[in-house]
């Protein structure tokens, strides 16, 4: 029974979570410098205190319908092997502590449409959180 702290964010009408240990920082949206790139979900790069960080449109990456960025849109800076990337999300709502019992892993479920990055589904009150695996995202 392990406790996991998750950063909860929203894309469209669905709530997602990622392991807090994988999260570096949460930022407000800043102007993105576009890069000529083959991946359409790569929006461009930004400058974070001298470091160049690529930005991913997570909605596009996960195949969700596109939406305009709002005042609540945030950049979730996540980390993998020392590399940092920014995930563009619609809203970062909270930090939750869940026990692993609350999370049903995909191994226990039917395979969904974005199975690669989905690690599990967590139940919270009347909400369902989709637990994403950062490693698979970037």
């Amino acid at each position, binding site marked *: 029974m392990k406790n996991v*702290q998750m*950063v909860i964010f929203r894309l469209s009408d669905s709530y997602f979570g990622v392991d*807090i*240990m994988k*999260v*570096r*920082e*949460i*930022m*407000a949206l800043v102007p993105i410098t576009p890069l000529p790139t083959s991946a359409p979900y790569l929006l461009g790069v930004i400058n974070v205190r001298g470091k160049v960080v690529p930005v991913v449109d997570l909605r596009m990456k996960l195949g969700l319908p596109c939406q305009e960025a709002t*005042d*609540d849109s*945030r950049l979730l800076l996540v980390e993998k092997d020392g590399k940092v990337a920014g995930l563009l999300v619609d809203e*970062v709502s*909270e*930090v939750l502590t869940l026990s692993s019992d609350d999370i049903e892993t995909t191994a226990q479920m039917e395979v969904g449409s974005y199975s690669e990055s989905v690690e599990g589904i967590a139940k919270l009150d009347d909400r369902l959180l989709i637990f994403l695996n950062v490693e698979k995202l970037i």
Partner: protein
Amino acid sequence: MQDLIKNFCELSSFLANTYETECGYFTTDREKYTFVYDQGLNLAALTEGAPLIKGGLLEKCMKEGREVVGTVARNVYGKRLKLYARPIFDENGQVVGSYGVAVHKLHRVARAFEDLAKPLAEAFPEGAMLTVSDLEKIAYRQSSSKFDIPGLQVGTLLKEDGIAKECIRAQKPVMKDIDASVYGVATRGILVPLFDPDDKMIVGTFGIYLPRTLAFSLQELASKLNTSIQEIAAVMEEVAASAGEISSNEGQLSERVKEVVEISAEINEVLDFIKNVADQTKMLGLNAAIEAARAGEYGRGFGVVADEIRKLSDQSKETADRIRKLTREIESKLQVVNQAAEGTLKQSQEQAAATEEVTASVMEMSRMAEQLAEVAKNL
């Protein structure tokens, strides 16, 4: 001289007849009347044995020993008299008495009154009332079949504030419209003063009173109409003024509403700022939580702090949202007020326009009423 006096007394009754008016033949000694032949005078002070007036004309005649002719005022004997007197001398040339004639001095008009008054009164189309007065009371009156003033009888005392006294004081002809409250019916009185032809003193008045029924009523009506119209005009002015006030109040109201809207906008700006701060605080809290998590054991306390910060920012945002809702409500309510005010403004403007129209009509009516009054006056 004795014979003269004797003949004088004998002839007096015959000669008195020749006078058209009342008269009296008399002789006196130095103190009293010794003989009086009275034809119609009926004066108590002018009878045999009556004392002479101290300082009067007869005394003057006897003192100065010469013929004297003079007027005696009405208040001396009771009637206005013209006195003709000569002294009686004895054998020694001393004045022992007087003899003469006293004639009732009646104004020509008064004398003609009995003959002329009736046909004259009937000659007026609506009838008339004729009077002759002395300085205190009515002496003669003549009414007509169509018109009479019962309040004016022979002997009726002249009213101090009446038209006759006015004529006497002014010693000039006077014409006056008399209200119905005085004689019971509206009349026009025309009075002329009568003067003694010898000493030019005023002795009385001659008056014609005409009924003013039709013309008077018309005039009064026109005057009342005019007054009513003027009152209406005054009220209309007040209405117009108050409509103007409403209009200016509306203007002020509109100003106030604008001010409130501006304040509301400022509040919204502040709310935006608060929301901004709340967002940043929340991010701060989240980042703090992240750092706390990475710090492991040591970060647990900090994690609690981070939680509290996030709670705070959530509350701020919630409150800001509530405030924004309230200001929106205020704005929409102000819109309603503004619309209502505009509606009222329009109504009062219409009212003002209607008032102007009414005022114009009233002015027109007022002019007509004035013309009517003019015509009635000249009837």
